[in-house]
């Protein structure tokens, strides 16, 4: 080893020793734990927004202060409108999601497990998928009227595809080597599905259910914006018609909260089902 190299090594050692000896992250006078870093920007934006609104620099009918939006939600809750509209929206999402995810499960399982079913159904379903789902709205309205049926159908359509695609691919990709284990123990087709295929496909299925639920929320907004007399989406339209920006913003926040909460619930269910398995 040359002396130059030796020196370089020594310097290296010295350098690492020095940096590890120092307490980490003591850059500024204020110490902010990492988990709060993400809060800095939204909190600052809210504060600046509130400040500008109070100084009269933002027209209140255009962008009301955060506190005004908060008060609007509170007032809606006290008046009972919030529960009524939220309840209707949630019911629509639940109905649509159950129908869509149910159909997605049925078709996904079928096309994943039976090659014949895949060859028969998958091309058509893929073709349908390439139509942006919102494009069906006029037809649904024409066929099913502006009542609940058309809304729920649209939501179900949104929830269907992610569930269908994920389950179909997951079932198709279940390791044939595991299926051979089932064959060794002479499992019937039904046992094969229940004891091997479904558990093996479960993680991807749950991913599909989660994105299906996300799309269900997206489509309930679309459905309610396009013609409803109730629901949070209707609140939004109403806010727009009557020029109350605070109501629109309140509705946006409600959608965000409901979407997030249901996603958490789905994740929690998924975690329970998956148990301790490695992922």
């Amino acid at each position: 080893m040359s002396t130059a190299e030796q020196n370089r090594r020594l310097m290296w050692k010295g350098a690492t020793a020095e940096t590890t000896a120092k307490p980490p992250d003591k850059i500024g006078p204020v110490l902010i734990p990492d988990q709060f870093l993400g809060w800095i920007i939204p909190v600052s934006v809210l504060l600046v927004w509130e400040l500008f609104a109070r100084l009269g620099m933002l027209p209140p009918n255009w962008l009301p202060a955060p506190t005004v939006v908060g008060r609007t939600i509170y007032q809606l809750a006290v008046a009972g409108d919030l529960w009524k509209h939220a309840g209707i929206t949630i019911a629509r999402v639940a109905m649509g999601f159950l129908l869509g995810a149910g159909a997605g499960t049925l078709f996904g399982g079928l096309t994943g497990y039976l090659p014949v079913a895949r060859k028969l159904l998958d091309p058509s379903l893929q073709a349908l998928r390439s139509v942006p789902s919102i494009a069906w709205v006029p037809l649904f309205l024409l066929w099913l009227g502006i009542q609940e049926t058309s809304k729920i159908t649209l939501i179900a359509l949104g929830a269907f595809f992610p569930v269908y695609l994920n389950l179909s691919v997951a079932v198709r990709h279940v390791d044939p080597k595991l299926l051979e284990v089932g064959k060794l123990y002479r499992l019937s087709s039904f046992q094969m599905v229940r004891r091997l295929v479904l558990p093996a496909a479960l993680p991807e299925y749950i991913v599909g259910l989660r994105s299906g639920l996300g799309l269900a929320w997206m489509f309930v907004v679309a459905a309610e914006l396009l013609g409803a007399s109730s629901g949070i989406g209707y609140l939004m339209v109403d806010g727009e018609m009557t020029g109350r920006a605070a109501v629109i913003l309140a509705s946006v926040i409600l959608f965000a909260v409901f979407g997030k909460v249901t996603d958490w619930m789905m994740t929690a269910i998924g975690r329970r089902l998956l148990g301790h398995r490695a992922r």
Partner: protein
Amino acid sequence: MDSDSFRKSTVEIRIARKAFAGSKGSLLALKDILLAIDPGEFVCVVGGSGCGKTTLLRIIAGLETEYEGAVFLDGKQVIGTGLDRGVVFQEHRLLSWLTAHDNIGFGLAGLPSEERSRDIRHYISLVGLDKFEYEYPHQLSGGMSQRVAIARALAGRPEVLLLDEPFASLDALTRMRMQQEILRIWEAERTTVVLVTHDIEEAVYLADRVVIMSPQPGTIRNVLPVCLPRPRDRTDREFVRVRKSVHDELFAPGCMAPLAAYNF
């Protein structure tokens, strides 16, 4: 265990031919295989890649059913898979969502739960994993996973245990320990064992008889008895001599496929 743990069985294999359909016509994987295995015997099948040794094992297991010939277990023809043959693959093939306990009990669904638990516990301690009964496969090392796979294969109380390069993916030291383990298990359970391997030393260390296969088409080139006392010493002169004779047989002209035969 009681007397029924002495489950021995003669295996008789008569395969005229076994071909796989390929894109360029059919490929003859096995031809004229005649082999009889005594009850309680430990037989190792050695051969290079593509000599059909795995296909042979899969035929005995009942996983390959399209072939000309027949396999007999105690004189009864074998059709399809069955619990009378336990199989261990090169990969452990454990189910990631089940604990070691439930993986071992996978084929015992028909038993009453008490009996099932008792059997599982028997086999889990046979493979020395009592402390890991409720661990999931991802929490186990490669050697431990393979032990669970062996316990799963044994739990169905097979008359024949079929192992397809079971230790090939383990590191050298673990492999040697597993070889001792499989002998100990074989001596405890007294099942007939057929083990496929490409490791000559492994075959000589384990087997009562070594079946040497040659490729294109896969045929049995020779069957060498290994008349060495157990436990065997890998460095013993006699051991080395037997190893060499298997080696010579395996590398004799025509026994290994020419390199050009493989599609790299």
